[in-house]
């Protein structure tokens, strides 16, 4: 019941008694509409019965894409005015359709409201909390209903544009797209050697054989797959408003996982932080979905517990795997764990998600000093990694992931040339 009913009843009562006191019929006329409307409103009052259904156009989509949502309202007992609000997480932005909307629902009527949402940020959402507020004809009664018809919507991070992937130093035994150092069946030419019984005729190098007067055989590099483990540092993040270092890290993880899986590599995923999560390396499209679903659950959980790589199950980090660590380099524990991994002989690459653009602009001498100290500290961490033979690529607002990966590739080429 709204205060309007009390106000109208009060106005009618005061006017009626004033009419009696002053013996003026005009005041009865003034009181009449308020009294009649109040009485009619009370007589016609009833409890609306409205149900809602929510249907999504898709259950899975990519960050930045649009999704159609259909909200169906079914009224057994309708109402003169119904305000319908589909509660949405702030990551889903309404592009089309009015939310909330005030409409009329007659008895037995069924109405469909359509919305077009833009998925502004990745995440696993549940859409379908519907708030309904009904009003009667006269605005005397207002009722609120909450209908929970939530359905899951998974928004995957968008992919970064990456042209060339990092080549692992070591390959595994299964067929893949990497040219292995070992010789075997493949396309890439490796060497020439004299013919031995059992060699296939199609491997004979006829030019070399003609020059040397005996049969010589082409040898090839085998084409193998590799194990790649994407290690996401979730100890800490830098956040400013809607932007966080976790978002680009997850986009990079998704992109790299998809690209490596496409070239038949086994890909594993480890979230290393307050909560430890892992997926054993394996191949195939299903693994990509597993990784992306695991990514959607990733969050930064504050923890003071010390963690090192011993806590990661052994099978998650197979020997000779390429470990791609995505880290904002904000926590000493992740730094220590990465150095430990390198010490255990893993082919480790660190992609630093730079948090500097998320930091507030330094003000005053103390601010400048703090900023310089932070940058120096980060430089020192990078130096420690490089001394341990870990390539570090910085990925920030100024550079693309592709450029960061190229930087690592160049580092690894130079390092190899130097070691020869």
């Amino acid at each position, binding site marked *: 019941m709204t205060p309007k009913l009390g106000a109208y009843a009060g*106005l009618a009562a005061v006017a009626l008694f004033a009419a*009696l006191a002053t013996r003026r019929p005009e005041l009865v006329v003034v009181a009449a*509409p308020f009294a009649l409307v109040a009485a009619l409103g009370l007589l016609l009052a009833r409890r609306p019965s409205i149900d809602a259904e929510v249907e999504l156009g898709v259950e899975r989509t990519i960050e930045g894409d649009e999704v159609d949502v259909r909200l169906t309202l079914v009224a057994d007992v309708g109402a003169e005015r119904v305000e319908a609000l589909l509660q949405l997480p702030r990551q889903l932005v309404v592009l089309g359709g009015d939310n909330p909307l005030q409409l009329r629902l007659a008895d037995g009527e069924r109405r469909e409201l359509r919305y077009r949402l833009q998925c502004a940020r990745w995440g696993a959402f549940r859409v379908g909390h519907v708030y309904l507020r009904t009003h009667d004809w006269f605005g005397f009664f207002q009722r609120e209903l909450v209908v929970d018809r939530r359905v899951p919507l998974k928004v995957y991070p968008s992919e970064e544009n990456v042209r060339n992937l990092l080549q692992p130093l070591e390959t595994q035994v299964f067929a893949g797209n990497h040219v292995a150092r070992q010789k075997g069946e493949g396309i890439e030419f490796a060497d020439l050697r004299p013919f031995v019984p059992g060699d296939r005729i199609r491997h004979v190098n006829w030019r070399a054989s003609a020059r040397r007067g005996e049969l010589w055989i082409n040898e090839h590099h085998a084409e193998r797959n590799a194990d790649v483990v994407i290690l996401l540092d979730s100890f800490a993040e830098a956040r400013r408003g809607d932007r966080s270092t976790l978002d680009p890290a997850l986009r990079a993880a998704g992109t790299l996982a998809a690209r490596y899986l496409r070239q038949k590599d086994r890909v594993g995923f480890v979230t290393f932080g307050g909560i430890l999560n892992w997926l054993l390396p394996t191949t195939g499209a299903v693994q990509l979905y597993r990784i992306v679903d695991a990514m959607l659950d990733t969050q930064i959980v504050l923890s003071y517990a010390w963690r090192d790589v011993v806590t990661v199950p052994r099978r998650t980090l197979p020997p000779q795997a390429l470990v791609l660590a995505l880290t904002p380099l904000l926590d000493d524990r992740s730094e220590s764990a990465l150095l430990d991994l390198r010490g255990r002989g893993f082919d480790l690459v660190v992609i630093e998600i730079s948090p500097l653009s998320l930091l507030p602009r330094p003000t005053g001498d103390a601010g400048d000093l703090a900023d310089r100290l932070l940058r120096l500290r980060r430089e020192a961490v990078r130096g420690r990694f490089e001394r341990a033979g870990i390539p570090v690529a910085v990925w920030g607002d100024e550079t693309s992931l592709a450029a960061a990966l190229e930087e690592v590739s160049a580092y690894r080429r130079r390092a190899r040339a130097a070691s020869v």
Partner: protein
Amino acid sequence: MAAGLVAYSDVASDRLPAVVGGVGTAGGALMAFALATRWRTVFPFGIALVGASYAVFVAVRNGAVDGRAPAVAAALFAAAELGYWSLERSPSRSEGAVVLRRVAGLVGAAAVTALLGSLVLLLATGASGGVGLEAAGVAAAVISVAVIARLASRASV
């Protein structure tokens, strides 16, 4: 609308125009204040004061019944309805049909008010008066208020 009503009462008043104007102006100001600050509790008091200015006008009036009372009642009711409509704190966009029905309902209610008011005035001026009619009037007023109170207590849905 309320301002027009106050202006009519003040201009048409032959006795105590300052009181009529003062009460009406206070009512109008209170309504405006309630609308500006979205203070729903204050709004009916503004309506009541505007109505009171008309009540003072008719109470001190010499002579016959005010023939414009149905129009005044319709205007006061429409002002109250429009005021409450303004005070609704809804961020929702209303469908065109909803707004149309609401406006039509308001216009219809104002028209019915004017018609019923004319009928009441016609009956009142035709009646000869007396103790019986006075008692019936008191009883009608009491019953009206009691019925509204009873319905309100029943409609606690």
